[in-house]
């Protein structure tokens, strides 16, 4: 699904974040990207999303080189991704409206797939994520958890095959965070999504990443990968294997610094 080859990314000041970096993600896999702040996690996600161009090397998703945002890739950010002037309902419909705006041109929206049932799709996702009571509210009026539910609904309404998440639950309180982590696991399995979730917390990486990519000191040359086959089930949180996985990731994180 994702292929990075010889990827190099430099900031305008010349400092490199990635240099000759290679990484592979197969379709349907659940990945977590773990690392301290400033290690290039978010940059990696923006590169995958086509929001930032690579300085050298190639980023391919589903075999296509990524030069601009790809219609089938969904992106969820930590916060500030919702239109403050649009209601929850209008925010969820936004992606579909953008698709309707361009038509199925293959560039901004998947080719040969006209949006015909915007209202119905929007309504389905409002109900699915329990947002009906606040569908008419603005993002400034609802809680952080509800905002992220709205962001998830907006993204999934576009029926993506790849979901990129940048610290999506970092600003939430613990119960809300667990709640949304479980929801993510469920939706992921249901829709057979390939997911890449960027996080700075070991516990989140251990729970959501069947594979964990550990980033560290700049520039990142090689991908440090930790296999974590137990992940993907909310019950994993209570197991001894989970504690072991966290310890293992902590070690890797230390080694990567």
């Amino acid at each position: 699904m994702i292929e990075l080859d010889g990827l190099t990314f430099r900031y305008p000041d010349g400092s490199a974040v990635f240099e000759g970096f290679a990484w592979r993600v197969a379709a349907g896999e659940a990945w977590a990207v773990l690392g301290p702040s400033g290690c290039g996690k978010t940059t990696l996600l923006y590169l995958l999303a086509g929001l930032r161009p690579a300085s050298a090397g190639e980023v391919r998703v589903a075999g296509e080189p990524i030069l601009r945002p790809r219609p089938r890739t969904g992106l969820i950010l930590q916060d500030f991704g919702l239109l403050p002037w649009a209601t929850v309902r209008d925010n969820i419909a936004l992606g579909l409206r953008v698709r309707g705006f361009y038509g199925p041109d293959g560039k901004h929206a998947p080719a040969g797939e006209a949006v015909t049932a915007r209202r119905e799709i929007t309504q389905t996702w409002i109900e699915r994520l329990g947002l009906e009571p606040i569908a008419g509210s603005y993002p400034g009026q609802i809680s952080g958890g509800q905002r992220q539910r709205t962001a998830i609904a907006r993204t999934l309404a576009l029926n993506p095959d790849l979901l990129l998440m940048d610290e999506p639950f970092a600003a939430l309180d613990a119960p809300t965070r667990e709640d949304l982590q479980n929801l993510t696991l469920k939706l992921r399995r249901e829709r057979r999504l390939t997911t890449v979730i960027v996080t700075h917390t070991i516990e989140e990486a251990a729970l959501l990443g069947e594979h964990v990519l550990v980033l560290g000191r700049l520039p990142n040359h090689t991908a440090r990968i930790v296999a974590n086959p137990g992940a993907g089930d909310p019950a994993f949180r209570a197991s001894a294997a989970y504690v072991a996985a966290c310890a293992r990731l902590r070690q890797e994180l230390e080694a990567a610094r």
Partner: protein
Amino acid sequence: MRRSSVLIAALALGVLWQLAAWVVHRPILPPPLEVVRVFAVEIVGDLGLDFLASLGRVVASMALAVVTAVPAGLALGQMPALNRIFSPVIYILYPIPKVVLVPVILLFLGISDLAKVVIIFLILFFQILVLVRDQAASLRPELVASVRSLGAGRRALFRFVYYPASLPAILTALRQSIGTAVAVLYVAELFATQRGLGYYIYLHGSTLFDYPRMYAGVLAMSLLGLGLYFGVDGLQRRLCPWQFAR
């Protein structure tokens, strides 16, 4: 601002006016009720036509200012390099009292309506430009990134992000500059016209010495400003409901 508080303020000002009229007791300050009576008669005649002429000029200036200042403000706000070049120019021109340009503009644009519209336009233009630019510059990059990830290119970003984001700034700028615009209208209409509230006030005040009529003109000008204020305010409530949601 609520309508009821405007009414109370108008009554209070009327009482003060009446007291002042009693104290002064000269034709130059007629009592408010007399002015209101003259206003009621005149507004269906000459004064009404002058009111409409002035209203037309202000609205035309507003429209002209919006269609020119908004794209310019959006461009400056989104392109820091462009802003670095133009920002000093704006801040040099912004504080110049536009009234001093009246003779120059009349000289170049002649005695047409266009000259008067351009004078008011200049005042509104800078206000809107600066507010829209700051609004566009303050848009969170995360917001733009996430809407782009939904497939939005330049045109869709304008339609779904930049345009709605700058609406409050446009309307706020209009609301803030209405007072100045109407005040300058008076100066603009002193010259080379037979229509407009400025002309009406000047004619009756300084030429005919008909003070009740002059004050009726002043009252009309105040109502023009107030009406425009509530017009823009209503527009903002309609177009930007999220600003009023609690």
